[in-house]
């Protein structure tokens, strides 16, 4: 049982306040959408949850099986896709997956990586250099990288970005499957993506 607890989170850069007092708790199966105008801090809030940015106030806690997960161990529980995140252009799609498997310390083989690449619909392009991918294919590969370790917390920043209708279907399947594995937080202004969620937090309000 995975739980994400965000309490009183605020973030400001120098004098500019992005958001304040954001609190929510998510349990396994929950999908939360974070909406808001451009610059309202949706992506920053996701980065705060992921531990990539320190909050100015409040705290993020994660629990697995009722026990608190220390900050330094959280990366094993988090999968993240964001426009600012890129993979290695000089590696093929499959090599990227193998690289992140090894970096994360998994004993996964080429077949495991191939399975995940198949799942996101990149079978035919698995051995192409990532630098030669279209933006939609790169987005799919980012999704594969985020799912590689079966994380209970999936953070999706504009997950449908650059995807065609088949890609969007893949995102829907991922979110649907994630309900069994854990928690999903989506940052988006796209109505279709916000509609995947059970709850919505609007940072512009």
């Amino acid at each position, binding site marked *: 049982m995975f739980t994400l607890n965000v309490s009183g989170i605020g973030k400001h850069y120098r004098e500019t306040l992005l958001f304040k007092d954001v609190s929510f708790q998510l349990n396994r199966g929950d999908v939360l959408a974070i909406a808001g105008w451009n610059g309202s801090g949706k992506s920053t809030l996701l*980065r705060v949850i*992921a531990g*990539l*940015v*320190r909050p100015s106030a409040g705290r993020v806690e994660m629990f697995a099986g009722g026990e608190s997960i220390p900050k*330094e161990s959280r*990366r094993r529980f*988090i999968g*993240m896709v*964001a426009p*600012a*995140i*890129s*993979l*290695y*252009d000089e590696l093929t799609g499959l090599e990227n997956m193998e690289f*992140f498997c090894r*970096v*994360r310390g998994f004993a996964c083989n080429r077949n495991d990586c191939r399975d995940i690449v198949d799942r996101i619909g990149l079978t035919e392009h698995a051995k192409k250099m990532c630098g030669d991918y279209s933006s939609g294919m790169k987005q799919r590969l980012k999704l594969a*990288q985020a799912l590689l370790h079966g994380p209970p917390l999936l953070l999706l920043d504009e997950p449908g970005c650059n995807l065609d209708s088949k890609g969007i279907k893949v995102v829907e399947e991922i979110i649907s499957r994630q309900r069994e594995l854990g928690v999903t937080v989506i940052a988006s202004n796209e109505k279709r993506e916000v509609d995947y969620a059970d709850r919505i937090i609007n940072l512009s309000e």
Partner: protein
Amino acid sequence: MFAVTTLIAVSFSIGSFRIEEAERPFLYSVLLWIILTFSALSGLARSFVKEEEAGTIDVLKLSARPQAVFLGKLLFNLTLLGALGLVIVPSFIFLMAYQINFPGLFIAMVISGGLGLGAGTTIIAAMVARASARGALFSALSFPLLLPIMITAIKGCERATVGISTAGWPEVRIAVAYFVIMITMSLLLFPLVWEE
């Protein structure tokens, strides 16, 4: 490319005859380490900046422990520096007709000095990767951090060239100590540098 260009420029403009024989050990050691240091700086400074510019730094943060990333980058930088040394040092010796009386000490000094240089440059590269004025910051940080290892390496190479009796190879030991201190400090400080 920077290393080869500098080396050729130095060998053409100074050569082996324009410097008095008595001054050669010191000046050749200085020239060698200037070439090695600035060649290293031009390449190694990019190790973290490249991740930042390519946008892969976040996914790396989400995937690996900070210490693992630092050690990986250090290993890469040391390999690069080793390859650079394998090209530069023999070429320098050949082009400048560099006479070395204690080859063992000279090799140990180049290796230990290179280790120190690699360790120092890696942590500086990590620190400047997120800064906007990277070039200026890199120079400002490099000067105090790399000066001790440069002075030590120059002195050690000069001793090896002259053939002064060097019981215990003090400069090599200082360079190894510098390397160990830099690694220890870096492993402790890198998680703070790595986090935004």
